[in-house]
């Protein structure tokens, strides 16, 4: 780094991503400052999840560069495992390891990746379970937990690696409505503790109350971004306005009989079986 200024937590320059002939990201420029909470919103298929998955290279960008904490993750020679250690990720479908207890879910990467001893790993795991309100579930298996508990355990699993950046990929979309609040509360606390967060979400209230900045994406580009009260309260672009009206007042739009302008996202092309586990 030749710059004297500290680099942002995440820096994305002219990011493109295609799945076969389908271009999902069409040139994204984007930054997340240290300690900043950025919510990415937009219709299905707008590329927001793909953007998030490019940041820790779960998806390989087609073109463009990404830096996380000053390290270029798009460098072909990057030590991706060590970069990922500093980036927590929370998935829509939780992805807890079903064959391990909650405690083991939280300790396995600490022990295998960070080489922490059992006692230390368990102490850190229990601290994080307390943070998400699951102290009493350490010995349970994921299948014995509710969706909300599973997602909080997944957050605690990521936190146990002491990441500098947390990525949330629609963390509440698979939850029953009454369980959403617990997860959002945990995330809000995390934001208050100063965690740098990138959150792809449909929870507009969370974006409004917790985000430092809201980014609206549509059709593979960033349409508009700014403080929540501007983007959500007084959107400049027609596409943002129409999206917000559909999200915030769906029945009203239906009455107007407007055609749904956001088709379901095309499934990413099925990877050949051989590549399934070569992430």
């Amino acid at each position: 780094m030749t710059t004297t200024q500290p680099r942002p937590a995440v820096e994305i320059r002219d990011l493109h991503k295609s799945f076969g002939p389908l271009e999902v990201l069409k040139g994204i420029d984007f930054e997340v400052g240290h300690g900043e909470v950025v919510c990415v919103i937009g219709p299905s298929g707008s590329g927001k999840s793909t953007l998030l998955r490019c940041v820790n290279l779960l998806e390989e960008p087609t073109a463009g560069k990404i830096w996380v904490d000053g390290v270029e993750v798009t460098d072909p020679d990057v030590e991706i495992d060590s970069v990922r250690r500093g980036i927590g990720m929370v998935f829509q479908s939780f992805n807890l390891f079903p064959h391990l207890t909650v405690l083991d879910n939280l300790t396995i990467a600490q022990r295998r990746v960070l080489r922490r001893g059992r006692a230390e790993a368990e102490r850190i795991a229990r601290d994080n379970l307390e943070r998400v309100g699951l102290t009493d579930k350490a010995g349970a298996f994921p299948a014995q937990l509710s969706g909300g508990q599973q997602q909080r355990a997944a957050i605690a699993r990521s936190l146990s690696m002491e990441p500098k950046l947390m990525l949330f990929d629609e963390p509440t979309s698979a939850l029953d409505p009454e369980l959403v609040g617990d997860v959002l509360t945990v995330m809000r606390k995390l934001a208050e503790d100063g965690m740098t967060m990138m959150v792809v979400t449909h929870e507009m209230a969370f974006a409004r109350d917790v985000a430092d900045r809201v980014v609206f994406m549509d059709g593979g580009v960033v349409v508009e971004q700014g403080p929540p009260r501007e983007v959500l309260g007084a959107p400049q672009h027609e596409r943002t306005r129409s999206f917000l009206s559909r999200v915030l007042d769906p029945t009203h739009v239906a009455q107007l009989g407007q055609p749904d302008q956001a088709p379901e996202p095309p499934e990413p092309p099925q990877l050949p079986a051989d590549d399934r586990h070569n992430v």
Partner: protein
Amino acid sequence: MKLRRRQRERLSLWLQYLAFIAVIAVAIYAADWGRLREAFFRVDIIESMFPTIITVALRNTILYTLGAFAFGLVFGTILALMRLSRVAPYRWVATAYIELFRGLPALLVLFLVGYGIPIAFPEREIPGGVFGSIAIGLGLTAAAYMAETIRAGIQAVPKGQMEAARTLGMSHFTAMRTIVIPQAFRIVIPPLTNELILLTKDSSLAYVLGVTAQTIEVTKFGRDTLNDRVNATPLLVAGLAYLAITLPLSQVVRRLELRYAKAR
């Protein structure tokens, strides 16, 4: 008089019971029990087979089976990982191996190992003698079947598991070993049990390697005794000896599956 639905169903059920009992009764009545007992249940022959049937024959059958299963499981897992590898030659080799060894009779492979390897490497011996030859000979075939089973198991583990593990900073190898493969094996317990039971019975092919009194297994022991005594009783005893392995095995696996059920 018209029967009501429940009466009709009860009548139909009773008729089926009756027919079933009738078939069995006829079979029991028609069979010549005296001759059957003479041919298959000579107590003196049964007594003469003990304790060798347990201490030598059954013990060897179990050892051969476990040896072949262990070899097949390790080799089969390696083949499965090769089939899923990014390295194209690995995939080609594994695919060719699986196609070849699934297509060959286990008897033939056992012959090739038992007689081919000593010819190819005259200076060396297969470690473990007959045991080693059988473990490798049957294991080579079993590995081909198990590789496909294990591959299917690995692919049945949701993609998000690998993603979550990689996101936590695990290498591909560590994620495979600690996250994906343990789940895959839970999925493939039933088909692998099948393979183990098939191997139990295939271990009777050991005779082609020329077993001795010490290395004899259940089927060969039964046939030898049959030839000595000119009586079929040993076959019954041998059959029961196999069931003494496979029936408890099914129970153990059922327990295992129950135990894993909550961790799925």
